């Protein structure tokens, strides 16, 4: 091989310093990119960590919406959604569904009446592509940005008595949510709740035109609105027991309503509902026909990441789906790594006894 004379010792020392400098610069750039030098950066571990209650997270469980129950069923598409999106799921037909009714709490044992927000995790499989979504029952989100959501978590866990006051002063949109939380009735059943995407997504139709869409699954069951006190009387695990019994008696249905933004509607801010009178399309019916306990149910190991979308649906300028995807992945990585802590072998919960199919 080509050989050159060795460098003088002075030049060699200079070269060693140069090499050390190159390695240190590369390592520093890597550390900077990974956020190791930026403690103020909102990272997925930081956001997910802020969800934990003061006693720490429930190991092995979802870091939020930890209490839930699995179901399977189908989405019966009526073909009308094809006007907005070319996704296979909107072509007329029946597509299999796995989902999860849940409560917006980091505590898998929280009494039902202590939890204000209810959720629906959903996976529809059509044409070999999955559409996952995680929706909640409020008509708008509490805050406008992921940073504000983190600030809300920080304030709600703060020992400073003025922390929430300070947060509300800086985030006026939260008052709208607080108004809903304080006045909306508690439905007696998951089957009576409407579940809303809140985030806007871009639907692309067969002609290539895009439409900003938010959607809701609206219950077909008769609503039974209760006061918080009356709902609490039903018991700490009423919702899971009730939905299992109800579905064992008859399949439960929700209508998927797609709502299209008018030009100028806020697509990037889920704390702002769109005005009434927007074009809406009823795209089909979600049919829930089997409820199973989460412990060995089909939803347990599914991350209902709302950015896992079929061709024909994409994220919009709404910053939440990306933040949720990053945080959900963190939660999923943590809880699967804690699988030994998950109560696979625990005695069945009160709800599980009634999940037996007729």
């Amino acid at each position, binding site marked *: 091989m080509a050989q050159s*004379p060795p460098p003088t010792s002075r030049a060699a020392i200079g070269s060693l310093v140069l090499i050390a400098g190159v390695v240190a610069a590369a390592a520093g750039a890597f550390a900077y990119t990974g956020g190791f030098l930026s403690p103020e950066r909102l990272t997925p571990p930081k956001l997910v960590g802020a969800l934990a209650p003061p006693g720490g997270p429930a190991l092995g469980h979802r870091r939020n919406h930890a209490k839930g129950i699995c179901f399977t069923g189908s989405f019966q598409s009526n073909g009308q959604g094809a006007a907005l999106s070319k996704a296979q799921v909107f072509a007329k037909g029946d597509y299999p569904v796995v989902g999860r009714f849940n409560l917006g709490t980091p505590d898998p044992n929280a009494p039902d009446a202590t939890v204000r927000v209810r959720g629906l995790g959903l996976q529809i499989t059509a044409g070999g592509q999955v559409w996952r979504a995680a929706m909640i029952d409020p008509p708008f989100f509490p805050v406008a940005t*992921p940073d504000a959501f983190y600030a809300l978590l920080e304030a709600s866990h703060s020992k400073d008595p003025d922390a929430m006051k300070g947060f509300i002063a800086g985030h006026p949109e939260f008052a709208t949510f607080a108004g809903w939380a304080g006045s909306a009735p508690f439905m007696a059943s998951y089957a009576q709740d409407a579940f809303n995407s809140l985030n806007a997504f871009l639907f692309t139709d067969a002609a290539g035109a895009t439409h900003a869409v938010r959607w809701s699954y609206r219950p077909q069951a008769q609503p039974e609105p209760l006061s918080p006190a009356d709902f609490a009387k039903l018991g700490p695990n009423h919702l899971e027991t009730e939905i299992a019994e109800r579905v064992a008696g008859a399949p439960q249905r929700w209508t998927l309503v797609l709502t299209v933004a008018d030009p100028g509607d806020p697509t990037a801010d889920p704390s702002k509902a769109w005005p009434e009178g927007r074009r809406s399309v009823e795209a089909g019916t979600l049919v829930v026909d089997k409820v199973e306990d989460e412990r060995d149910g089909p939803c347990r190991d599914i991350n209902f990441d709302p950015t896992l979308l079929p061709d024909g649906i994409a994220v919009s300028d709404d*910053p939440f789906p990306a933040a949720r995807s990053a945080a959900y992945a963190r939660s999923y990585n943590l809880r699967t790594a804690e699988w030994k802590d998950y109560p696979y072998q625990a005695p069945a919960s009160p709800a599980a006894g009634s999940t037996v199919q007729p």
Partner: protein
Amino acid sequence: MNAQSTRFTVLQRALHWLMAVGILAMLFIGVGMVSTVMPKYLPLLEAHKTLGIVILLLALLRLAVRFVYGAPALPAAMPAPMKLAAHLSHYGLYALMIGMPLLGWAMLSAGAYPVVLYGGIRLPSLLPPNAGLHALLWQAHVWLAFAFFALILLHLAAGLFHALIRRDGVFESMAPIAGPREGTTPAE
């Protein structure tokens, strides 16, 4: 390449430098994407998955090319421990170039995720869903990524050490363009 050749073939050098850029980009995208909740998380994730598959294909091609063309012998004057370190580090680099994309793909499969690349290309699952396996593969993917970056820094330092201090032609054997010393007798 015959045993007397002092340089890797043009194809090998092109693959080396192309993959050097790709793998460094991959590691930076990976460590960057898991540290952000900003909208850029999604395009970074998509780029990470896509680039990972490209690197896997290039690494397999490169391994085949290596079997066909071999590599220039290390200088006879190189101490045996240094030669051993060189050989072992290269086994490690090949194992990681091929193993990391497979680990990532398998991790997503075990996590019941669809594997969707740039342009909507969908890959099949490598494994059935399994939470415990997902956790194992995730931890391996994370820790081996840091090991990979450390090995690349070592490789970079060794390359510069050969170029600047030992000046024994090892760096020139993989240099993208022929250096001034190539094919000439030493000056002075």
